[in-house]
């Protein structure tokens, strides 16, 4: 039996545990990639099955936790009850430089802490007052975003009206983000909603808000980094590479980003986008509105770094192209060293992944640079275009699972015997109890960076320390032999 046939049969077996209706729904989200197909053959971006353990989050998580949260010099209000803000407080490790509580606010939690009376009487007045209080206590903040939690939409509060009024009062941007958790089927809609607020509430006034550096002239090499959230500092090696090939990064949107960088974006000649899923919307808008082209890149592992640098350089002139070649060449020795050291320990190891919006495909070549094979992958909240793009990265027979449930993931792991599982914190200890090496691919297990050349060295080290961890040999009792 071919791998494809074997794995298709495996999917059928795994589905047997569900009630019929749920099995039918889930079957559309599981498939096996077959060579030369332009797609992975799974449905995506559909509602999760109730009562089934999904790893998905909500629109609030996408808007506040991902897109807006890392804009470091604005205050992001979790508007509604206390929980959503509490659980998303400092959880994502978006690194930044700044004086927290004074001119930056990244690791703080601001909430209107809704009480029953706010549900009954509405929270608009409280919100307006809260923004006044922010102005008194945090005068250096560069603006505010309001991330609405579930009850706000349900009780019909008019946060847009409050935002307009308060923007006038404070002279600073106030952005209402309707990211109630029940909207959409995952955090993905929250990304989209957040992008739309940038389009509707920020960019139209960009010229008014913008503060350009002294002596600043727009240049031909001005670019934006879009959709890198600087987990463990990821965006910084990426920025360094782009600057090294002669480009000028005028905005990081949004990892280590500021409000000013957000309004700098329309001045760029090109948007360079790392997380396509979360930020393609704003890139498309800027293309349409300002004629700024956009380009996806992948800075995981030397193969993709080189490919991406060349792809980016090709959009510019020979100076940039030469520098790109130079930069690639300069790092060759370092990369050879990494592969020489870790390759032999990782060669042939099998990996199963399940992450959010770009890593299920983007990380595959980095594993391959180390001689490892990805045998299963899938997205928490990917869309059809993500799975199309994934087809470029996966090999024949790879199991594809969209919005994989706890049950499915465990069963696939039991049957496919990977050497490493790469997913999130909720999955980590399930597999570690099964004595399966694991790395968190959302947060790098508090390590990082993983982007860029320096990042690849860290990535390789981390995969080695997971897989070749000697404590796995301690799990079996000696007496049971």
């Amino acid at each position, binding site marked *: 039996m071919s791998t494809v046939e074997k794995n298709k049969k495996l999917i059928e077996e795994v589905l047997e545990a569900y009630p019929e209706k749920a099995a039918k729904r889930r079957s559309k989200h599981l498939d096996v990639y077959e060579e030369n197909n332009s797609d992975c053959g799974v449905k995506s971006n559909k509602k999760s099955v*109730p009562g089934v353990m999904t790893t998905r989050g909500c629109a609030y998580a996408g808007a506040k936790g991902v897109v807006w949260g890392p804009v470091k010099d604005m205050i992001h209000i979790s508007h509604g009850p*206390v929980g959503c803000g509490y659980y998303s407080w400092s959880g994502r490790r978006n690194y930044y430089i700044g004086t927290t509580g004074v001119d930056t606010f990244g690791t703080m939690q601001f909430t209107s802490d809704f009480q029953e009376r706010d549900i009954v009487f509405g929270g608009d007045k409280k919100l307006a007052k809260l923004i006044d209080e922010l102005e008194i206590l945090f005068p250096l903040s560069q603006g505010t975003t309001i991330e609405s939690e579930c009850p706000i939409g349900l009780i019909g509060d008019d946060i847009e009206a409050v935002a307009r009024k308060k923007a006038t009062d404070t002279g600073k941007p106030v952005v209402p983000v309707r990211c109630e958790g029940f909207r959409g089927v995952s955090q993905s809609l929250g990304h989209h909603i957040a992008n739309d607020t940038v389009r509707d509430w920020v960019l139209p006034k960009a010229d008014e808000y913008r503060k350009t550096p002294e002596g600043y002239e727009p240049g031909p090499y001005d670019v934006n980094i879009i959709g890198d959230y600087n987990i463990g500092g990821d965006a910084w090696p990426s920025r360094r590479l782009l600057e090294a090939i002669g480009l000028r990064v005028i905005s990081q949107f949004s990892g280590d980003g500021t409000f000013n960088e957000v309004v700098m974006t329309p001045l760029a000649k090109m948007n360079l986008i790392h997380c396509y899923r979360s930020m393609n919307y704003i890139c498309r808008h800027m293309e349409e509105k300002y004629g700024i082209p956009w380009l996806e890149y992948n800075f995981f592992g030397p193969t993709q770094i080189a490919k991406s640098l060349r792809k980016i350089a090709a959009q510019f002139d020979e100076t940039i192209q030469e520098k790109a070649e130079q930069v690639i060449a300069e790092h060759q020795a370092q990369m050879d060293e990494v592969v020489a050291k870790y390759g032999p320990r990782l060669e042939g190891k099998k990996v199963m992944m399940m992450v959010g919006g770009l890593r299920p495909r983007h990380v595959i070549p980095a594993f391959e640079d180390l001689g490892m094979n990805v045998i299963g992958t899938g997205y928490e909240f990917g869309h059809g275009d993500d799975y199309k793009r994934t087809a470029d990265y996966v090999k024949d027979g790879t199991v594809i699972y969209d919005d994989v449930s706890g049950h499915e993931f465990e069963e696939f792991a039991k049957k496919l015997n990977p050497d490493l599982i790469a997913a999130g914190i909720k999955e980590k200890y399930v597999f570690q*109890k099964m004595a399966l090496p694991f790395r968190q691919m959302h947060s790098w297990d508090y390590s990082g960076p993983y982007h860029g050349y320096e990042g690849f060295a860290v990535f390789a080290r981390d995969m080695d320390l997971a897989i070749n961890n000697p404590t796995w040999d301690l799990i079996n009792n000696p007496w049971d032999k």
Partner: protein
Amino acid sequence: MTENTENNVNAPVASEPASEPGVIQDHFDLFQTDTYQDLFEYKRQFEGAHSPEEVSRIAEWTKSWDYREKNFSREALTVNPAKACQPLGSLFVAAGFEGTLPYSHGSQGCVAYFRTHLTRNFKEPFQAVSSSMTEDAAVFGGLKNMVDGLANSYQLYKPKMIALCTTCMAEVIGDDLGSFIQTSKNEGSIPQDFPVPYAHTPSFVGSHITGYDNMLKGILECLTEGKKTETTNGKYNFNLGFDPYIGNIRELKRILKLFGIDYTVLSDNADAFDSPNTGEFKMYNGLTTLEEAGDSINSEGTFFFQKYTTPKTQDYIEKEWGQSTYNVRPFGIRGTDEFLTKLSELTGKPVPQELIEERGRAVDAINDSQAWIHGKRIALYGDPDHVFGLVNFLLELGAEPVHIVVTNSNPEFEEELQAVLDASPYGKGATIWGKKDLWHLRSLIFTEPVDLLIGNSYGKYLWRDTHTPLVRIGYPIFDRHHMHRYETMGYRGTLNLHNWIVNTILDELDRQTIIPAKTDISFDLIR
């Protein structure tokens, strides 16, 4: 895009590798290199940032009495609260029962957060499901989601019980849990006799401890229905409340075993949050069997260690079960004394010799270190009962609580704690700051400094800003490993609390005396 005009602002030129081949620098070192420091400096021009002078002027102002007054006059804004929301507590207590699947009725994002939060503290898998409600449920109600959700989770995860709580979404749209569960049973999602205890746990009421209470009461109501007998089973029930130290459950059971007292722990989640690594993943690790929990109605009495976490459950047990209940706080020497005395009185069994010896050893140890603790000014924060135990312990060491911040406070608690503070010479300088948050605490520490801060991991930001050493005690602790495996109750727990506190003070003293030829005059080997 070919023309290269002069840019006035030039990027740093370094392109070569930031480190030598073979040297791996991760975020701890990499970003401190000149290459990255230059990069940060260069990036600043685009940030539209305030001048460093302005930033330090405001930073200084935030430390002032003027700022404190403004900070304390806010009414609408909460910054860095020391409380979570109801469903977290509900899921936490549900995990302590055998074969129990915690289920949250509402949108799915909440469950992702609860699972993440608990997993990060305990470094253990935490399994829970939701109804995955979306816009259509917001309009039409969540009945259909529950009918399907219960059927799917029952068949797929084969639980013995599903403990169902709500999120704020389900509460705002007014879903009727009792009738939804019955409808689900009528439609065959789950068997008619399958236990589905439930609790209404809106996030806009109370906090995680309220949710704990509501779910515990829901579970006990469901499991004890029709089980009241004429005679008692001779056991005592024990409930620890929202206590993240699973070592405490094990310590409690050890103490009861030494006494020879038969017991039921109401929600024994020790294994749920600390299961052995055997190469096999077990979905359910709750240790309180449904049978034991059902029979808890026939016990001699029920002990509650967290009075303000479980008021409704306690009231229910007294009124509906007609059972005696006891509030004890087995933290510190006196708290443990009180607990053991009560056990001895009720059961007529003497306090076991082994525990008496442990007491002596704990007293001996704290006597050895008392000089380092006496008169130390302390700020602390956390849940009401957590704070209560700590304050009692600090007072018996001669430490002086100064700022006590309890975001999920209530007047009854404040009154009781105030009486304790008033009764001790070391408690005279303390203020209980009910309903305040950690940003208030920041102002308090800047204006009235303390020697030590005690609380959860979020206190590390206060440590950074105010340089007050932090002892991590509470929930969550994300940035230190395995603290929850230790006990903080009983005489052994007293020793742990004591060691964490005194050794933090000594660590800090070493840091203060470490500069060669300057402060290291007092860099003593023997402390």
